[in-house]
């Protein structure tokens, strides 16, 4: 434990030294070599290395709940944020961060977004999870109940009568909903 923490702080202070990499293996067997400060944004990885005395630099950490596709998305976000962090406090990258985040999610389909939320939840990256759930909320903000069901893959288990009753009760809440 002490070795990994100590080397993480020294690697950031002396940039000339070769950066330490952490190996993460996704569900479909691909191994990602991830720079340590980026990998440590994944809370599950950080605590794995902090809690296990016997892991070494050569240890490949398996992440059976994360697909390769989701991992690419996760790392893109975490690397960008590591980059923003390094430049602090000189630059005030607030606008830049927003611009990056906006462009980042624009390229993600609803399915990709959901997959990333699942991965961010499993990897316990609270900042990314918070950002992605916000994006999901935005995407369903003005959408119909049917759209929301399809978006989240949720099955309607109300009887037609039960649903009609609920909708009647909350009739006033359905004004201004977008067409699907």
């Amino acid at each position: 434990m002490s070795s990994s923490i100590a080397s993480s702080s020294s690697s950031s202070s002396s940039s000339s030294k070769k950066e330490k990499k952490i190996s993460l293996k996704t569900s479909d067997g691909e191994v990602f070599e991830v720079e340590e400060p980026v990998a440590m944004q994944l809370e599950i990885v950080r605590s794995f290395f902090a809690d296990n005395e016997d892991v070494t630099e050569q240890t490949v950490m398996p992440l059976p709940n994360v697909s390769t596709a989701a991992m690419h998305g996760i790392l893109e976000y975490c690397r960008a944020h590591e980059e923003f962090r390094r430049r602090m406090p000189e630059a005030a990258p607030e606008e830049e961060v927003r611009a990056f985040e906006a462009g980042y999610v624009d390229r993600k389909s609803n399915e990709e977004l959901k997959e990333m939320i699942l991965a961010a939840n499993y990897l316990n990256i609270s900042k990314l999870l918070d950002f992605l759930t916000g994006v999901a909320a935005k995407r369903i903000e003005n959408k119909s109940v049917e759209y929301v069901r399809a978006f989240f893959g949720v099955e309607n288990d109300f009887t037609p009568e039960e649903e009609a009753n609920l909708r009647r009760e909350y009739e006033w809440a359905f004004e201004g909903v977008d067409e699907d």
Partner: protein
Amino acid sequence: MIEAIHVSIGIGNVRKGDFSLPEDVMIDIFLRFPAKKLAQLRCVCKSWNQIITSQPFVESHIDQSTTKACILYHPYRYRPLELGLYSEPQEIGLYPETKKLTFDFETLPNFVKLCNPPFATKLIDWNIIGSCNGVLCLCSNFDLSVIYMWNPSINKYMALPKPFYQYNVRYLGFGINPLSGYLDDFKVVCISANANAEVYSLQKNSWTIVAEGFPPSIDLSRCPYDHPAFLRGCVHWCARVSCYVDSKCPWLIVSFDFADEFFEKIMLPDNLSASDSNKFLNVVDGCLCVFAAVDEYSAYELWVMMDYGVVESWTRIYIIEKPDKYWWPLGFAKTGGIFLQGVCEHGQSTLVTYWPDSQTFTCTCFPLELPHIPIQMLTFVESLVAPVPRHLIGA
């Protein structure tokens, strides 16, 4: 391991496998929405409906709701009353002096007009008795025994049964029993002209007589613009000790404790108690406070009871002086200002904000068409709390 890190506020009996995303992630998403959107999401499936109506979710939702000023104003007897939510502008001086001030809700970005409550036709002229956990308590100004609790965010309401002393109602107070642990343990206290008192409990849905009654020889303030202040589980009114010479009757505060259902007197400092002019009760930063008119109503002193219940802790914070009469304090802005109703440069009675630091006034919000039309202002927080007895929900 990860499951232990996420603190789930979900309820145990939600069936697994209903979500494409874990329940705690869905709750994260739900908490970002206002009540109206959540009403739609209740119709998606049973487990969502169950989560959104569960007490833990309702509690988390109210915690992240922002507090706004709730405004009721009475434009004309023959027109419907207007009720709206006012969000303070981020920048001071939103409306430049040159802009013509016309009354139009649509052009006021910080003002959202609320729909009239479903029972509006049953009240000829109404009054907000209080606002608590997103629920407003309203009564008819012509018949104080006609009382409603209403949550405008979910449009749920409860018509209260008539109090025992229904022909004699003089004063009402609204609040919540803070000791029950529920957000919906609402109560209304009703004081009749002959000093009888009774309490309505929403959960019991009935009135109970308060055995000791209202303290004898005390007259509650009859100031029309005053409303009771709810703080620390008690509702408070300004009152005067009954005496023969009206102008000499000392002022004091009377409180009613909603947990243990008893009245108590809170004394004012001597000079405040002895001055004849009106007192307006309010709450600032969790402290009980009094606006006391001085100099023939051209100024108000703000007194704050820094330490609740300790008479020696009453402190005069400052004086607001406005070079005209016919204005009065309404409440506190989050940004440090004080809301008043008064006349602006354009000569209309409107919502004015006083800035204590610079001792300046800004005409913040909507102008009314005629002077001296009362505005009522309370703080309001959007919530999903249903003002309906728990045993009747879903029945």
